[in-house]
C-alpha cells in the first residue's frame, strides 16, 4: 500500500534527520544555533562507516560517529562561546570543514563494504498489520531512536540539567547570578547536540544507505535546523516533523516502484519546499516560542 510504504519510509529516512534535529534542539534551547549540523552529520556518517569497516562492529561505528560529530561541535562551541565568533558564519564554516575533511579521509571508503545494521522485525509487534510495517520492521538503531525524543523531552523539562540548559537559553544572566557559567552549559549542550547529529550521520551511512559517499547528507542537516524552528523547540514535535520529512523523501521511490514516472528533481526539492512553506505558515507563531537568548541571535 502506497501510504504504508511512504510512512514506513518516513520512519526509515527520517531517523537521521531526527537525531540531528534533536541535537539542534538541545543546542538551541541553550541559546546557540549550530548551522554546522550538516558538517557534524557528514563527519558522523564517515566516522561511523569507517570505524564499522575497520573494526567490523557497526555499534562501535555508531559510537565513533557520535564522537566525530561532538568533536566538530566542540570547534563550534570554542569559536562561538570562547572566541566570540559569529554563530552563523562559524556554523557554515563547519559545514565546509565537514565537506573537506570527509572528502579527504573518505575517498578510501567509497564503494567499499562495511558491516551495517539490517532490519530486524520485532517479534509479534512486527507482524501487526500497518503499524507493524510502519514502525517495527526496521534496524536496531531506528528502534533506539524511538526513545531519544521522549528522553530529551524528559531531560529538558523534568531534570535539573534541563533546567540549567533552558535557563542558559532563556535568561543567561540569571544562570550567571546563581554561580553557574552560561558558556559552560551552552558548550555542553552544543557538543552533546553535535554528537546526536553525528549519530544521525552514522545511522545514515551504516543503517539507511549502507554506503559512504561524498556529501551524502545532501542538506539533511539544514532541514534539521529548520525543523527545530517549526517544531517550536519541542522534542516530540521534532520527532513528528522528522518523520514528515522522511515521508517526503520516501514519496519518490515509492511512486517509482509503482511505475509512476515523476521528475526526480521536483520530488527532491519537495522536503525543502515543504519546510519553507511550513515555516511561512507557522513562522510568527512558533518564533514566539523561541528561547529568549536565541531570539537575540535570530533577530539581530
Amino acid at each position: 500500500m502506497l501510504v504504508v510504504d511512504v510512512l514506513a519510509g518516513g520512519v526509515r529516512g527520517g531517523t537521521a534527520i531526527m537525531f540531528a534535529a534533536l541535537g539542534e534542539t538541545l543546542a538551541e534551547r541553550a541559546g546557540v544555533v549550530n548551522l554546522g549540523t550538516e558538517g557534524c552529520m557528514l563527519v558522523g556518517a564517515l566516522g561511523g562507516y569507517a570505524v564499522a569497516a575497520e573494526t567490523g562492529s557497526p555499534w562501535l561505528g555508531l559510537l565513533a560517529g557520535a564522537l566525530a560529530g561532538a568533536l566538530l561541535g566542540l570547534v563550534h562551541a570554542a569559536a562561538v562561546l570562547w572566541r566570540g565568533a559569529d554563530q552563523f558564519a562559524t556554523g557554515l564554516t563547519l559545514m565546509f570543514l565537514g565537506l573537506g575533511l570527509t572528502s579527504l579521509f573518505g575517498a578510501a571508503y567509497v564503494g567499499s563494504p562495511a558491516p551495517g545494521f539490517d532490519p530486524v522485525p520485532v517479534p509479534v509487534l512486527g507482524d501487526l498489520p500497518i503499524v507493524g510495517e510502519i514502525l517495527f520492521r526496521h534496524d536496531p538503531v531506528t528502534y533506539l531512536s524511538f526513545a531519544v525524543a521522549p528522553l530529551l523531552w524528559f531531560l529538558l523539562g523534568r531534570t535539573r540539567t534541563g533546567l540549567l540548559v533552558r535557563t542558559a537559553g532563556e535568561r543567561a544572566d540569571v544562570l550567571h547570578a546563581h554561580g553557574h557559567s552560561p558558556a559552560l552549559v551552552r558548550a555542553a549542550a552544543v557538543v552533546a547536540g553535535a554528537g546526536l547529529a553525528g549519530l544521525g550521520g552514522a545511522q545514515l551511512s551504516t543503517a539507511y544507505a549502507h554506503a559512504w559517499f561524498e556529501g551524502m547528507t545532501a542538506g539533511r542537516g539544514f532541514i534539521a535546523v529548520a525543523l527545530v524552528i517549526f517544531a517550536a523547540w519541542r522534542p516530540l514535535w521534532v520527532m513528528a516533523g522528522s518523520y514528515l520529512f522522511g515521508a517526503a523523501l520516501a514519496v519518490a521511490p515509492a511512486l517509482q516502484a509503482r511505475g509512476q514516472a515523476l521528475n526526480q528533481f521536483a520530488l527532491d526539492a519537495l522536503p525543502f519546499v515543504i519546510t519553507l512553506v511550513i515555516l511561512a505558515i507557522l513562522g510568527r507563531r512558533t518564533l514566539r516560542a523561541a528561547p529568549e537568548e536565541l531570539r537575540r541571535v535570530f533577530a539581530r
Partner: protein
Amino acid sequence: MTATLTRPAVADRTASPVRTALRTAARWIGALAGAVALFAVLLLAKGVDPVAALTGMVAQAFTGPSLEQIVIKATPLVLGAMAVVLPARAGLTNVGGEGQILIGAVAGAGVGLSVPGPAALPLMLLAGAGGGALWAGVAAAMRLVVGVNEAVTTLLLNYVALDVMLYLIYEPWKDPHGSGQPATRPLEIVQRMPLVSGTAVHMGIVVALLVAVAVWLVLRGTSFGFHLSVVGGNPEAARRAGLPVARLILAAMLLGGAFAGLAGAVHLAGVEFKLRPGLTTNIGYIAFLAAWLARHRPLPAVGAALLLAAVTVAGDSLQLDSGLPAATVNVLMGLVLLAVLGWSRHARR
C-alpha cells in the same frame, strides 16, 4: 551577535596606529599560520608529505596560466561576496549565494536559449541579476512577513535552486545532441563574454570590479548606505528614527541577490557556456567565506576573493601531484576562516 554599531576598542584608542596595525598584522599572520599548520598535520595523517604538497600548491598558483585562472575563478567570487557584504551592512546573513548564483545562471541560460545573436548577452546578465534578486526576495519576504531568519531560508532555497536547475537540464532544456552528462545547448559564440584583449580572461572581471567599487561607494558615501548601517547596527533605533526598516532590508536583500544572480550569469557566459550538474562548485559558499574574511568590507572582499580563488587553483596541484580529492582544499579554506573568525577579535563585525 550583539548589535552595536561600532565596537569601541579601548586598548586601540590609546595605542599608536602603527602598533595597532602591527598587532593586527601579527594576529592575522598567526591565525593563517595556525590554519596552514593544522592543514599540514591533516595531510601528514593522510600520508602525504605536507611540505611537498604546500610548496606544490604555491608553485601551481604562480604559473602564468594559473594567474589567468585565478582571475577567472575570482570573478563570480567577487560578485558573490558583494551579495553577502551589502546585506550584512543591514545586519542580514545571506547564505543563499549558491542558490542565487544557480538561479542567475538558469535565467541567463533561458535568455541565451531563446534570444539568438549578440543582443542576448546584456539581456542574459540582466535576467541573471533579476533571477538572483527574485530568489533572495523569497527569503526577504519570509523575514519581513513571517519573521523567519534569512540564514535558514536562504540555505534551504539553495537546495531548491539546485533542483530547479537539474530539473531543467534533465528534461525541458536538455540538449538532444549532447553526449555524456545532461546539459543545455551551449551558448553561441556571440552570446559569450568577450575576452580582455591579449588574455584568456573574460570581461566578467571588469563587471565584478565595477560592482565592487559601486558597492564601496554606495556604502561609504550615500544616505542609503548609511541607513543600511543604522538598520544593521540597531533596527529598533532605526525604526524610532523613522527609517523605513522593512524597505531597507528588502532593498539590501534584493541587491545582494542581484549581485549573486549576476555572478551566475557571468559565470555561465564567461566560463561554462551551458548549464550542467556541478555548475557552481560551491562558489556561493566560498564567496560567503571571502566576505567574512574581509569582515564585510567591499574592497578587501575583492582581495579575499582573489586569495580564495588562488587557493582553489593551487588546490588543483593537491589533486594532480598528491592524488587527493578536489574538495580537500575546502579544509584549508575552512581552517583559514575559522582562524580568522576566532582569532582576529574584530572579526565579530
